[in-house]
């Protein structure tokens, strides 16, 4: 069974038709990537899955159960968390407080503390900065925090919106390794990226979104070798 299924999703922002009948399957335990240029509707799709934007029609199901009618906080409780575009850490809250909020839906204090320990093991720099306001972190550290915070909800499906945005290649490489490690532990990942090359290398399946329409999809390896995709997204 697919962890997440999106069917015939129609999303409008006022007069703007943002998503046209989008279908996506996110396979259980795999990394699925959604590629596309700026303004293609990638972030809109993630926001709709998370419940921040309501679809006009179509369905979203999590392990077979419909979730499109739920409020964002209920969707997190069902097992979908998101690291949003632009990281969106709470700048006036400390690193530790950000992580605590990521665990809002949980009540197991010991488990929360253990998960914070795990995140510190992956990213020791977050550990050193636990008591700092997260607004003082570097861009890379903020991205680590945003992903770590989303992991604190112990999601079944993790949505990542452009984790490479604005970061140095060496930092991006580290973050993508961590995404793979998170996936290896059994977390299903839906990765939105503009950096198609990087995303297709770690993903199992890829989708290409153009002006709100799924233009192409298939195994990531095939998309990597596809001439049209190479020309459009991989720089020839």
């Amino acid at each position, binding site marked *: 069974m697919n962890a997440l299924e999106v069917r015939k999703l129609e999303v409008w922002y006022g007069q703007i038709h943002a998503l046209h009948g989008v279908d996506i399957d996110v396979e259980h335990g795999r990394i699925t990537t959604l590629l596309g240029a700026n303004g293609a509707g990638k972030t809109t799709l993630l926001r709709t899955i*998370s*419940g*921040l934007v309501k679809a006009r029609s179509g369905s979203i199901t999590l392990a077979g159960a419909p979730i499109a009618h739920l*409020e*964002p*906080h209920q969707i*997190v*409780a069902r097992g979908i*968390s*998101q690291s*949003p575009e*632009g990281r*969106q850490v*709470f*700048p*006036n*809250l400390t690193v530790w*407080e950000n992580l*605590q*909020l*990521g665990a*809002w*839906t949980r009540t197991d204090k010991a488990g929360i503390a253990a998960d914070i320990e795990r995140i510190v093991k992956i990213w020791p720099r977050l550990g050193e900065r636990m008591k700092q*306001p997260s*607004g*003082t*972190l*570097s*861009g890379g550290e*903020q991205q680590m925090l945003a992903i770590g*915070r*989303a992991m604190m*909800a112990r999601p079944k499906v993790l949505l990542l919106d452009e984790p490479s945005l*604005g970061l140095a290649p060496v930092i991006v490489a580290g973050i993508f390794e961590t995404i793979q490690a998170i996936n290896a532990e059994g977390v299903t990942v839906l990765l939105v990226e503009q950096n198609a090359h990087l995303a297709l290398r770690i993903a199992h399946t890829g989708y290409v979104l153009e002006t709100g329409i799924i233009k192409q999809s298939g195994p990531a390896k095939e998309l990597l070798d596809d001439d049209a995709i190479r020309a459009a997204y991989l720089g020839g």
Partner: protein
Amino acid sequence: MTLFLQQLINGLSLGAIYALIALGYTMVYGTLQLINFAHGEVYMMGAFAALYLARFLGVDTNPTIPGVIVVAVGAMTFCAVLGMTIERVAYRPLRRSSRLNMLITAIGVSLLLQNVGLLAFGALQSFPSLLPEAKWQIADGLALRSQDVLTFSVTIALMLGLHHIVERTQIGRAMRAVSHSRDTAALMGIPVDRVVSFTFAIGSVLAGAAALLIALDKHTIRPDMGMTGGLKAFVAAVLGGIGSIPGAVAGGLLLGLAETFVSGYLASTYRDAIAFLLLIGILLYKPSGLFGKSTVEKV
């Protein structure tokens, strides 16, 4: 010197009241970017709730400490429910429309409650002495009244409690998260509506406490006390930097001191003018207020 110290006591006492009310304005502004003009009326309703509850329980004629505590808790609870109801009924349906719509609605709710108050309670009522009152003459022309001591101690206790909630608890962290970004807070699994509701409840409880303190001090309560008191507290919140909790406290105290010193050294007729002079001054020279937030954000 004694005049100075006496004005200092009076100013801090008045400022504490302003600060308690200003906190409600600033916290709601922090979460919804809304100037909740009805907040002054919640404060006014708190005073009348205390009065009627005291009468109902017979605490006005036979005051006891437990009785007064019941009246205080009852009035504050009433304010919390009123504040949450206003948010639920008047503001929440407008959450996705423009801020101007909410602002106009807030003014409407304020006028409605004020006139309901006038209709139900009359122009003014006297408030009974529920607690023994004393006046300690420290020096010639310098006295400390038990009401001032009560106001200081209750205000400090409430502010410590508020600080604890906002800084040390998960709901407090959620309030700060919601005030930064409602969408991102929702992505954490935070039920944003409930956090907004809680923010109104806390602000209203503080207004209820302020109402009871002022009623026990002045012994007169009026349906329009929310208009003047609320407006001054709003000025205090802007002075301190709207959205900032320490700012509301500082702004309240500053305004209280400015008013009493002006009436002590100049003339009490300038008392209200100083509040708005300060407001104009701060808007001209430091529009973000004394504690105005300059958030650290890296892109």
